[in-house]
């Protein structure tokens, strides 16, 4: 009997005042956390800080003592655990592939239990193995023990994706891999993440991994949530020593004061440049073609400002020209300090700024990329 879909997409997962005690010790204490639909939220923190416990309360493998966990407003404790879990993908360290089943059987187990016919299951399994770069002809009949650690990890991911779940729970999925393989899988996972566009809760011990993959990072310590925010929030505004320690603010940014915008800017890619004389509707088409979300508008060789795709979509009424609707953007000089530039950008909530070399364009300053270059 197929399990009914509980949710097609995740709007939010709200943990409110969630606590879990083992004996007299809290594993998780008064946790408040909202996970937004579509984001990849990282849980990071010292061993024993309650990450796994938090994750496993989301799929009801552990019931909270107090507090509530709501997915799209529905309390998970009101839902049938088996059904709830069938609606999520779950990946753990050391994979947990079943040794007595072939790769194909491992990935196809839940579809089979869901009553899919063999043909459909098989097609889905093959598709997913392809997706995680394991040629199905070669791998589908093998047993887990005949695969390398990295290959097994890929199978684990394929298995979690098999029912196309809107939510993925991942507990140190790359934890057992050696650093090179790990980086490679992270790269691949970033690609996959773009394609699948679903909500992901991801535990790691590795802050680099957290920065590379996470939209937001939640730091746990001693059963409590210490801070949650985008990577730059944690780097620039760590709430305490522990957070600073984890994100390693000091080591990474001790040179910040000596660095100039010039050192960390990116060259302006021609694809971002739009002409001020283009109307908004045409601009939308151009931006779709160029796969950009933001455009830099120039009018007669002079910077006019920036436009964002989201603001252009309602262009039909009056088809304005870009030069009239471009928003002013921050401009820095080559010799400005990066620290100052970043904090100005953060204050006004902008993530790109122009860098000018006198009258000519020097490049762009993209806050995310600056961080990635620093770490």
């Amino acid at each position: 009997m197929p399990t009914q879909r509980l949710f097609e997409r995740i709007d939010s997962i709200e943990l409110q005042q969630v606590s879990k005690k083992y004996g007299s010790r809290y594993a998780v204490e008064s946790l408040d956390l909202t996970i937004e639909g579509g984001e990849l939220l990282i849980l990071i923190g010292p061993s024993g800080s309650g990450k796994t416990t938090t994750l496993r309360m989301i799929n009801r493998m552990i019931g909270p003592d107090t507090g509530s966990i709501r997915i799209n407003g529905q309390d998970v404790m009101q839902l049938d655990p088996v059904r709830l879990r069938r609606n999520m993908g779950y990946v753990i360290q050391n994979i947990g592939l079943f040794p007595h089943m072939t790769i194909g059987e491992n990935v196809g187990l839940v579809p089979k239990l869901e009553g899919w016919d063999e043909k459909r299951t098989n097609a889905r399994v093959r598709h997913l193995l392809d997706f995680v770069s394991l040629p199905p002809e070669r791998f589908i009949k093998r047993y887990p023990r005949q695969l390398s650690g990295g290959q097994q990890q890929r199978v684990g991911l394929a298995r979690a994706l098999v029912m196309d779940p809107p939510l993925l729970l991942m507990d140190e999925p790359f934890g057992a891999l050696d650093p090179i393989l790990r980086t490679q899988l992270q790269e691949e996972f970033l690609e996959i993440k773009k394609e699948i566009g679903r909500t992901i809760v991801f535990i790691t011990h590795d802050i680099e991994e957290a920065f590379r993959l996470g939209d937001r990072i939640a730091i746990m310590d001693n059963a409590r949530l210490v801070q949650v925010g985008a990577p730059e929030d944690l780097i620039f505004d760590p709430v305490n020593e522990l957070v600073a320690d984890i994100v390693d603010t000091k080591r990474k940014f001790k040179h910040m004061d000596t660095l100039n915008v010039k050192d960390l800017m990116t060259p302006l890619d021609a694809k971002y440049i739009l002409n001020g004389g283009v109307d908004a509707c045409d601009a939308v088409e151009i931006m779709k073609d160029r796969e950009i979300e933001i455009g830099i508008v120039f009018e007669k060789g002079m910077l006019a400002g920036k436009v964002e795709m989201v603001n252009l979509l309602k262009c039909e009424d009056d088809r304005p020209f870009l030069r009239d609707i471009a928003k002013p953007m921050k401009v820095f000089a080559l010799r400005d300090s990066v620290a100052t530039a970043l904090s100005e950008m953060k204050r006004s909530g902008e993530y790109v700024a122009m860098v000018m070399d006198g009258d000519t364009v020097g490049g762009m300053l993209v806050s995310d990329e600056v961080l990635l270059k620093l770490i």
Partner: protein
Amino acid sequence: MAATEMILNATWEHIVLVYTTLLASILVAVPLAFASLYSQRLASVVMSFANLVQAVPSFAVIAIVVPFLGIGFVPALIAIMLRALLPIIRNTYIGLTNVDPAQIDYANGIGLSEWQIQRYIRFPNAYPAMFAGIKFSAILANSIAVLTAFIGSGGLGEIIFQGLIGYNTEKLLLGAIPAIVLALLIDLSFTLLEKKLTPGYIKQ
């Protein structure tokens, strides 16, 4: 020839007794092993009973059954079962509990129901040990079934006991040799079956 017919009849009776007992033992032992998973108390009672009875001589087991159940096919069946059950229960239980707990946990995590975990995870893992237990019990049952002729179960043992009464060497051998051949055949057939049924993940 009368002797051939006698042997064939006795062999048939013997086979029926052995396989009936074996089947009954499997039907009792396997569910009991599964049930033991859910009750630590049941598990420890069953396992310590299993270990104790293992040490009791078959002849004594047969004797103890008589005052309660009398003689004949059914008491013989019960007596054999008392011994044949144990290897199956023990091996099945050990097989079921030897599954890596992380696997069970993971199966829970992807939303397998309790029954599906038994069916798709525990059982396939326990199966090789369980089969070994059944093979052992089959040979044990064949051996004790010779002895139960003494309490009227019929079978090849009956010819042996007739031979013992008058010390008739020929009769002794006519009973004993088919019983030995049967034992070897059971062993062989189970070995072949075992090879054939070995799951792929162990073979490869």
